[in-house]
């Protein structure tokens, strides 16, 4: 005779972790904290997004002071080599999971500085980017839309840039070293 007793299906540890992760995703996408690193011009469209005009806090977003606290690394505009070195350093300091949102045309293909000798053209050669917001400069609406897109990606588990960074670490590292050389910190300018 078939037992009518309810037997809970034991979950493996991986499955439990997955469940917890999904719950965590809800919190993570509703509380995205930005790291304000004004790498370039597009930072100027962030104050309207943060302050009264567009009020990013509605979505649970806010600026944070240090990379440790932040969820999103916001690349606002073109990246000179000197900045890129610092950007990677900052990215590696952030807590996981971490997302990268790149504003403007410059991180995508160099934008208006595509032929400059001091500016990199493609950011995703160096660190994984989850959301690009194109435009020079992107409107505040576009910026906000980028964040909403990121939330959507987190919801559908597509914001996996930080995992990619772990998986393809050697590739990213090789690209970084090709462009920047080894960071050898021995004096205060360390270039």
């Amino acid at each position: 005779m078939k037992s009518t007793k309810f037997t809970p299906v034991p979950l493996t540890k991986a499955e439990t972790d997955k469940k917890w992760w999904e719950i965590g995703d809800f919190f993570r996408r509703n509380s995205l904290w930005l790291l304000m690193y004004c790498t370039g011009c597009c930072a100027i469209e962030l104050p309207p997004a943060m302050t009264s005009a567009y009020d990013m806090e509605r979505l649970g977003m806010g600026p944070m002071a240090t990379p440790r606290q932040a969820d999103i690394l916001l690349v606002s505009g073109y990246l000179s080599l000197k900045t890129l070195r610092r950007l990677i350093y900052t990215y590696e300091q952030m807590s996981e999971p971490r997302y990268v949102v790149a504003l403007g045309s410059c991180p995508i293909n160099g934008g208006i500085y595509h032929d400059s000798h001091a500016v990199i053209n493609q950011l995703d050669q160096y660190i994984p980017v989850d959301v690009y917001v194109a435009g020079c400069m992107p409107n505040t609406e576009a910026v906000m839309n980028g964040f909403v897109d990121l939330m959507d990606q987190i919801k559908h588990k597509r914001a996996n840039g930080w995992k990619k960074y772990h998986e393809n670490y050697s590739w990213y590292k090789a690209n970084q070293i090709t462009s920047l050389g080894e960071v050898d910190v021995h004096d205060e300018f360390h270039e």
Partner: protein
Amino acid sequence: MKEMKLFLGPQHPGMHGNASVHMFVDGDIIKRSYLLPGMLYRGFEKQMERKLWVNNIALIPRVCVPEPDINEMAFASGAEKLLKLEIPERAHWIRMIILEFARISAHLMAYGGLGGPTGNYTLMYHAHADRNNILDIFEKITGARVYHQYIVIGGVRQDLPKGIEKDMHTFLDSLESRLKEYRDLGIDNASIIKRIKDTIMLPAEVVWELGVTGIGMRSAVNKAYDIRKVAPYARYDQVEFEVPVSDYSDARSRLDIKIKEVQQSINIIRQCLEKMPEGPVRVKPARGQSMRWTVPKGHVYSMVESSRGEFGYYMVSNGGTHPYRVGVRGASYPQGLLGIEKYLPGTRIDDAALWVDTMGICSPEIDR
């Protein structure tokens, strides 16, 4: 003596823009400091040599982000001088309106920026809300919020849209009525006065030594040195306005002058709207194949008054389709790059962010 090193920027909430102030600190007093520039370097002046004169109009606003229109104005008026081009009367007035709006927007941003270092975020939120209205007006006029590329060689890109005067008047009236509120929240706020009064002093010697212009200079040496007065461009000689000065340059007096200049800008825009004639707004600069027209041989230094001081372009043409050499005098270069080493030592780390804020340092302008 054992020292500690602190960094203000590039990734620091107290630093606007991508530059780093390195501070050697004893206790909490800054002993030595210098600005580490170069993080925004993108070979700007070199790039300009590679672009057509007309293409450069698209590039130059990016020299300074908070107030891009002065670049267009300086570049366009310089090119016009080289071309010996007379632009239509109406274009002059429209340019003035644009420039003054840009000045108000930059001042509001800088004044609201006071909210950051002092922690009064309400002030910042209000200032940015008002600034956003200006950006909306810009969007209506030019189609873009920040980089307008509106002031072009030969006038302005297009005429003002219909009915924009009404929007402008509405905005100006509301802003003027709220200036007192800004004072109350900012420089007249008892808790903020403690932070900004009689501190963060800019001595007159530093002004003379470094060649600081703009509000930094006018507040320190009581000298109404304003390009709009001493070498008027556009039609600034036909409008009435005052240049507020003071001889005591603490942070408060500098911010006070900022607010007064906002008031003056409002007056200027009103006069412009009143006196502006009808007519065409643009002439063709020169003859040439498509846009590859040439500019006669020569060199010119064209300067405008930005919200941070004298902003100039030194342009050399060898008669070709591209500029031969363009040099930019960034307004915040003296007080930013050089000044950090002069005036920051001796102050406290509490004040470092306020220094950067009230001196109006715009880092892309330093690096280029």
